[in-house]
């Protein structure tokens, strides 16, 4: 893995040869800005027993309707 990463980093280093002086970075290509939705109740997903089970039911550790998380601080 170490060797793989070294050779990949050596490869991508070729970008240092490109003159990007006053070029702005391009983070996205659609040009969309502030793609907000209306601040109102969305009822596309109504929570019911079935959906609750599909979502919470897949947690590896759970108790009743809650997801169980291991202790944050070591004992």
């Amino acid at each position, binding site marked *: 893995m170490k060797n793989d990463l070294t050779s990949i980093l050596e490869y991508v280093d070729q970008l240092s040869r490109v003159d990007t002086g006053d*070029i702005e*970075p*391009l983070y996205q*290509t659609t040009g969309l800005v502030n793609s907000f939705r209306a601040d109102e109740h969305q009822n596309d997903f109504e929570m019911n027993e079935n959906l609750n089970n599909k979502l919470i039911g897949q947690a590896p550790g759970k108790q009743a309707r809650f997801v169980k*998380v291991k*202790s944050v601080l070591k004992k």
Partner: protein
Amino acid sequence: MSVNYTIRDIQAGLQKKEFSADEIFNRYLNKIGLENKKLNAYLSILNKQNGQSNAADFKKQKASFGAGILAGVPCAIKDNILIDGTVCTAASMILKNYVSAYDATVIAKLKSEGVQFLGKTNLDEFAMGASTENSAFGPTRNPHDPERTPGGSSGGSAAAVAADLCVFALGSDTGGSIRQPAAMCGVVGLKPTYGRVSRHGLIAMASSLDQIGPITKNVYDAALVLNAISGRDKFDSTTVDAPVPDYTSRIGDGIKGLRVGVPKEFFKDGLDPEVGERIENGISRLKDSGCDIIETTLPTFEYAVATYYLVMPCEVSSNLARFDGIRYGHSSQSAEGLIDTYLNSRSEGFGPEPKRRILLGAYALSSGYYDAYYLKAQKVRSLIKRDFDQAFKTVDVIVGPTTPHTAFKIGEKISDPLLLYLEDIYTAPLNLAGLPGISIPCGEGRASGMPIGFQVIGKPFDEETILRVAYQLEKTLNS
């Protein structure tokens, strides 16, 4: 079943009552049962209950055959796209038993058309790879030569279409994952413009690059599927509210007078002569069809792969941080505290390629390296897009090879990740610039005998023109 059904064949068969929707679905399931062992194209098979669209939807479509041309058509879905109530693995151990809680938008759209889902197809783990060898559930084999890979990452979808184990399939394309396997399996693959098709319900890899698109047996079918899956979606805020034309309406209009750009950078070292030969042939066919062939240039083309292998891993490292071993997916049994749950679950659940990319991305984003790697790459990305913008001032489409060579042998490149990364040379630039591209078969290699893909690249949201060029070229090559 020896017929290689297209979408229109299925529609005609249903109309003439040669078979019912149930019968054609079951015929394909039987065929998959017989042939999938050899190819490993499907990871899971759906049944009548979860594979077939809601009976009401189907009846509604059936009442108006012609409008609902996809009604009853059996298709395959790449296993990183969610179908409600069915397992979705992304070909990773970390999601081995994950059950989708909802339908991806593309699936909901196909369901409303009455499409039938045969199963979920194999891929490189989290769509990371170019050979489908990175799957945690074994490689897919190329139907043209089982010793070779089908390409990737949508290798299962491309192989399933090529072997007629479905009528069409959906794939996803982050750096070439629809077009490259389509080229290597001798079928059609279309990556739409970034923002054309919703990714809601697609397991995210690199969010500024990912697109969903069709893999089909011909260009017309690709247009039909694109019709069904395109459009603005409130669940994916990157989708653009641009009108969706009927992509079939002008597909046969001809291409006389169209300006076709051929970048000189596409034909340098690294392009296998047997591929170059077929591409040149395709270009001369376009000329015969009345196109103006114009030599053009993409000066920063040579930096696209390096740019892609910085931008993409950075986004991967953010996207895959959601796998925490707590809410869903694999959770380490050996972990004692919270931090061990994160670390061990990921160490045990992710395969080598996702790990490589997560490490690379986290490194390139880290303080002290951010400017030199991530920011630099995004600036070069600007230049790559600028090159395309410049070229499209004088040409309508750009054409060239989809891949530098034909399908390689299983095991041939898997030990050298960098070698596999170079597979994306002709495809990744489009993702970086957000452009649409289609790969169509243009013959077999003189030496390898394997299929070769011809890529047509378009302006943003101009899928109509690339489909028209591809349709004409397909017709000319088959005549």
